[in-house]
């Protein structure tokens, strides 16, 4: 799974929930991996690429606010693998 850095989804909470969900099912031996993905964008004003960091999500070079934080809020299942 990929958890956007700005998603409010906690890595630890996800692992805890997934681990408990599969207990006693055919997936009980499954391994889960959650990677946290940084939210980045190219500044609309000065074109510098920067990491969207709370609390202001602004470009560190020129102070322009990020255009959108939506990418960094996504939490999704990237893939599963098995035989």
């Amino acid at each position, binding site marked *: 799974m990929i958890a956007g850095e700005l998603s409010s989804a906690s890595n630890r909470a996800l692992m805890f929930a997934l681990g408990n969900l599969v207990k006693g099912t055919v997936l009980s031996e499954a391994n889960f991996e959650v990677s946290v993905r940084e939210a980045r964008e190219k500044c609309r004003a000065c074109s510098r690429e920067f990491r969207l960091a709370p609390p*202001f999500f602004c470009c560190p070079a020129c102070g322009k*606010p990020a255009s959108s934080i939506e990418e960094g809020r996504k939490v999704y299942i990237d893939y599963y693998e098995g035989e």
Partner: protein
Amino acid sequence: MRVYLAKELLEANQNNAGENRSLLRASGVLMVNLIGSPGSGKTALLEHTLKKLSGYRTAVIEGDLYTDEDARRLSSWCNQIVQINTEGSCHLEAGYIGHLLAQENLLSAELLFIENIGNLVCPAEFDLGEDIRVVLLSVTEGNDKPRKYPLAFKVADAAVVTKTDLLPYCDFNLNQLNEDLRKINENLALFTVSTKTGEGLGDWCKWLEKLLQRKRSA
């Protein structure tokens, strides 16, 4: 074998929110989602807003963990009110709002308000399909809250600073708040109100009326 899904966890909620948005567009209802911590003054603001906008057909979806006290507080000022008790859950979801839009007579209203569960974190994550999302901040909570809970303010259309009659008793720095909010969300509309003195309620209600008019003529 590796199977790529790239499926978003909140996709189901997003889809439901999209359906709500289409329903609201078709019926010309303006839906306003109020979020804020417990005690920030959501119900008090609604009471006074409904009173001031009594010329419109209004409806309220009142979210609380338990009890219908807030719904009863509002019932004299509103044409229709629906109470949701989430029994512990900390936010409302689009699917349930959609269910209510279909079951109850809410789409005959002009203005539909939602009082979300008192919480500054989770309600910001769940799009309900609303036209505008409003986050409340009472002066007793302190002006640093947008720095500590930036997402709620980032995804909002307006912020309402409540209980301004208490400003003389709190070290609440409105200028600092303004500066922080501009940085977090340059498009955020800002209102300052007190339900005790009535200060600011006029501007807030005028803004809602303007949005309603714009939606109807769209």
